[in-house]
């Protein structure tokens, strides 16, 4: 725990910001402000050129890539990342964790580091960034408001009982590592991916069209949008950045339980005039 500081002593602070997905395109002015002001920036980018670009904004950059290793559990890597950031905060520095996409989406280190910093009495904030999900809606022309859109971590469909609503879009994240429980590899095996396909085949036909999506990270590149039948997914080229997008398999059906009951109050979520709440 930090000791009580005098008014002149430097006070550590932590800000976790999003870099967005594309170099130069998605950084918010506020995130740039944090990066410029930082005493040290821990950068977690998915593209080496993005890492180089962050170093042009603030040369006091530490890449977290060196903390990863093939065969090393990610849990350990993540603990080391958070510990490295916290050590600098305790040393009185303004520390910025710069994470590609959104720092709070599919990113455990920023949440853990911020919680730890706050528990020790330090100021800690998270500033959002443009995530892969945001890019996905734009690149695929998908509006989640139309029929709904459910997001799952892909492995959780294998490890847990999850219900899929096939009248909504289904987006599965981390599909490239689906089924791997070592958390120490870059990609899962075709056999592990086949288990995911088998799980999806419980709800969708084999020929159901799905899309493998990857957001572009450089402004000269294009997003990856590969369409294929569900049954072919296990043999598809997948990477840790791959996301699977599954369109609805059936139209929205009228709610039979509420049919003919008239308008429904959104606030009470019960048919108007049938509110049984105590007076």
């Amino acid at each position: 725990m930090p000791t009580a500081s005098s008014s002149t002593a430097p006070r550590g602070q932590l800000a976790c910001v999003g870099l967005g997905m594309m170099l130069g395109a998605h950084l918010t002015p506020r995130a740039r402000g944090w990066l410029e002001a930082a005493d040290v920036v821990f950068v977690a980018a998915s593209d080496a050129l993005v890492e180089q670009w962050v170093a042009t904004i603030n040369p006091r950059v530490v890449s977290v890539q060196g903390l990863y290793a093939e065969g090393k559990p990610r849990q350990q890597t993540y603990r080391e990342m958070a510990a490295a950031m916290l050590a600098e905060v305790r040393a009185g520095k303004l520390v910025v964790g710069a994470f590609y996409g959104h720092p709070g989406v599919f990113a455990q280190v920023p949440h853990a580091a911020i919680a730890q910093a706050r528990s020790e009495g330090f100021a800690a904030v998270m500033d959002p960034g443009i995530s892969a999900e945001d890019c996905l809606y734009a690149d695929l022309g998908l509006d989640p408001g139309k029929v709904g859109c459910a997001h799952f971590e892909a492995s959780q469909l294998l490890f847990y009982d999850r219900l899929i609503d096939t009248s909504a879009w289904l987006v599965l994240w981390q599909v490239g590592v689906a089924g791997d429980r070592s958390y120490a590899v870059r990609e899962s095996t075709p056999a592990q991916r086949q288990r995911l396909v088998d799980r999806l085949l419980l709800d969708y036909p084999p020929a159901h069209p799905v899309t493998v999506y990857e957001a572009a990270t450089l402004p000269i590149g294009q997003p990856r949008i590969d369409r294929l039948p569900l049954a072919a997914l296990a043999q598809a080229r997948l990477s840790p950045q791959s996301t699977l997008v599954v369109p609805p398999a059936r139209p929205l059906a009228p709610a039979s339980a509420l049919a003919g009951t008239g308008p429904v109050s959104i606030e009470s979520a019960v048919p108007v005039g049938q509110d049984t709440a105590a007076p």
Partner: protein
Amino acid sequence: MSPLIAFLDILGRQPGVDIDAALERLDLDAATRAALRARDPAAVTRAFGARTEMWCKISIPEDEPQPAEEPPGDAPDDRPDDRPDRDPDR
């Protein structure tokens, strides 16, 4: 800032830039120039000499198993006292 990173930064902020025309004015090596003309991100990264494989943040989809709690010192030891009847080495 390297000319390549500066160029990509501009492209990121100004999507209407004519890449091929802008390349004529840049001091870039032949490999980088060719990779940019081909709009090939992997080739650009290789030409820059940066690592092409990056580790991504992967969210762990299940909780880590918690270490088993040590029984308190005065707790009864429920492990069997008897050694195996047979020596496993025999």
